[in-house]
């Protein structure tokens, strides 16, 4: 087996590992195995990204059938970067998961938990790597089904209700995507994305294509949880087991954003999406509302997981905003934000998991005085939070910088002001966390909590440190993001 098979190994390894994980039975063994797999995947994605940056797009024909007859894996700067983000998050969250999962989920089912986790990972990687429209649908369903169950495993019964709501909305979204793919196939006779992007413009009657565009966009926006299609997200993230919240918050919505990018720019093309379809006029107000409402609602939450779930809605707004500019700096901002937000939100949810482990609660009141008791955890939480605000030196600043720049380039200074307003709102909710942790004294009857174990602290700090490192050294992230943006915009014309 040579390096030429890396693209398929990226997806096939977790797929094969999942049933093996079920067969392993012993929880500890299943966990160790999953960890190894996730590290291997991370290594593969690094190799792939290096190869893509050096040699350009990689195309892998599954089964040896030439596209458009067979299914093609097509890796360019955009999706190999997203692959790196997902596998990176998985490589950090999996070692962390052991203790958090041991606390929140009953023991005999741990091997099944890891199997589902691997399946969710398989789905996300499959969506990202594939170059075939229907294949996206199939792998989206793998990841969705696995996520519904993972969320339902949360300790509270509300987890089940949240998972059901997600299942209904997610399935409607996926079916919309399927309708869109069907319409595209009907008018072009192909399912291959690259082939579609050419043939789509030769269609004699464009009306079905317009409808397809609408269905695909709405379907993806449900998965992405952009306002007002976000209602499944807060409950799902709040009640899921913490390791699952961290993994999904850091990766699932990123893949949603990637699929949107792929359809809007590669498949339909920038000119079609933004000049013949009013995508900018729809996406931009929605994302601004998402930023303001998400941050605004977050301020009033007392449950920290819910607070940061609403903050995710706001951050998704930033992502969508970057896409809606359809300019180099806007897209660079969006793609960099995919990376940065994954690091920050992943780190924050992992820190929340540490707090959950020690105090058994993620209420804001549980934080009182915790700054002294669990200094490392709280420092991680606060730095992650400042990243969400966009304070300089954190990576959140980098993404916002590009977004503001894009707004100014497009002569939309009110938008730039709204971005800053969103940051102010974020400062308020992060401020509440800081206040509780450092300026309030713990209730006298509260036990003296110990710092979280290093097996959990280390992964948390890896993500937080990454978000700091890439806030200062932007050459790598921004460099790749700029290439990716150029690929998307260049591929469109």
């Amino acid at each position: 087996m040579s390096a030429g098979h890396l693209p398929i190994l990226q997806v096939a390894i977790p797929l094969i590992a999942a049933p093996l994980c079920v067969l392993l039975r012993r929880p500890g063994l299943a966990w160790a195995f999953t960890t190894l797999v996730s590290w291997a995947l991370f290594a593969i994605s690094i190799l792939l990204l290096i190869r893509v940056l050096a040699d350009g797009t990689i195309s892998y024909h599954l089964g040896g059938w030439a596209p458009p007859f067979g299914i093609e894996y097509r890796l360019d700067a955009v999706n190999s970067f997203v692959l790196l983000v997902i596998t990176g998050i998985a490589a950090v969250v999996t070692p962390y998961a052991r203790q958090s999962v041991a606390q929140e989920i009953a023991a005999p089912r741990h091997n099944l938990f890891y199997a589902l986790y691997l399946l969710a990972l398989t789905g996300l990687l499959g969506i990202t790597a594939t170059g075939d429209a229907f294949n996206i649908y199939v792998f989206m369903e793998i990841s969705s089904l696995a996520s519904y169950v993972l969320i339902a495993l949360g300790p509270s019964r509300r987890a089940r209700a949240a998972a059901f709501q997600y299942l209904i909305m997610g399935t409607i979204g996926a079916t919309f995507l399927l309708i869109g793919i069907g319409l595209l196939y009907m008018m072009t006779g192909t399912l291959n994305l690259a082939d579609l992007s050419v043939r789509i413009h030769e269609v004699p009657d464009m009306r079905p294509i317009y409808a397809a565009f609408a269905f695909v966009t709405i379907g993806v926006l449900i998965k992405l949880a952009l306002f007002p299609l976000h209602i499944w997200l807060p409950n799902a993230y709040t009640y899921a087991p913490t390791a699952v919240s961290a993994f999904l918050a850091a990766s699932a919505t990123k893949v949603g954003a990637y699929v949107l990018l792929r359809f809007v720019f590669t498949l339909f093309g920038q000119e079609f999406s933004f000049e013949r379809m009013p995508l900018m006029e729809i996406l931009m107000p929605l994302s601004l509302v998402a930023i303001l409402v998400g941050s605004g609602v977050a301020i009033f939450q007392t449950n920290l997981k819910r607070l940061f779930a609403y903050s995710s809605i706001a951050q998704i707004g930033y992502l969508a905003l970057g896409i809606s500019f359809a300019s180099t700096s806007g897209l660079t901002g969006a793609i960099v934000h995919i990376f940065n937000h994954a690091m920050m939100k992943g780190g924050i949810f992992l820190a929340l998991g540490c707090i959950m482990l020690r105090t058994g609660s993620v209420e804001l009141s549980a934080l009182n005085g915790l700054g002294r008791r669990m200094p490392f955890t709280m420092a991680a939480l606060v730095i992650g939070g400042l990243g969400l605000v966009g304070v300089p030196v954190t990576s959140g600043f980098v993404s916002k910088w590009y977004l503001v720049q894009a707004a100014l380039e497009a002569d939309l200074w009110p938008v730039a002001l709204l971005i800053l307003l969103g940051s102010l709102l974020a400062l308020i909710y992060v401020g509440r966390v800081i206040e509780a942790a450092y300026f309030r004294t713990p209730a006298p009857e509260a036990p003296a909590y110990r710092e979280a174990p290093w097996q959990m602290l280390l992964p948390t700090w890896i993500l937080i440190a990454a978000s700091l490192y890439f806030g200062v050294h932007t050459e790598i992230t921004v460099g790749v993001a700029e290439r990716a943006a150029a690929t998307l915009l260049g591929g469109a014309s």
Partner: protein
Amino acid sequence: MDILNHINYWAAIALAAIGLYAVVARANLIKKLIGLSLFQTAVFLLFITVGKITGGTAPILDAAYEVYSNPLPHVLILTAIVVSVSTLAVGLALAIAIKRDYGTVEEDEIHAEDSAAGPDKA
């Protein structure tokens, strides 16, 4: 535009609309799943309709026939049916779990129980 040519599409669309209505309107979780199933099947019908060629036969090659209907939509829908039954199974299992936890599968009663249980605890 010849209306008769599109009647099959429209029948499928009507079914899809009914199913989708049921999903959003009904409070009973099982009924939502029934609606979802209806909606998906209608979409499948739309796909299969695309593949039909007048005068064609099923795409199993045989010397006796020359015109075959398009096999690709069939393949896609086979996969999609499997996906939909998987979703249904997980959905029903969730509904059963919800019944166990809440004692009801009516959406509004679940909300009522949640708000009765106190404001938003984890």
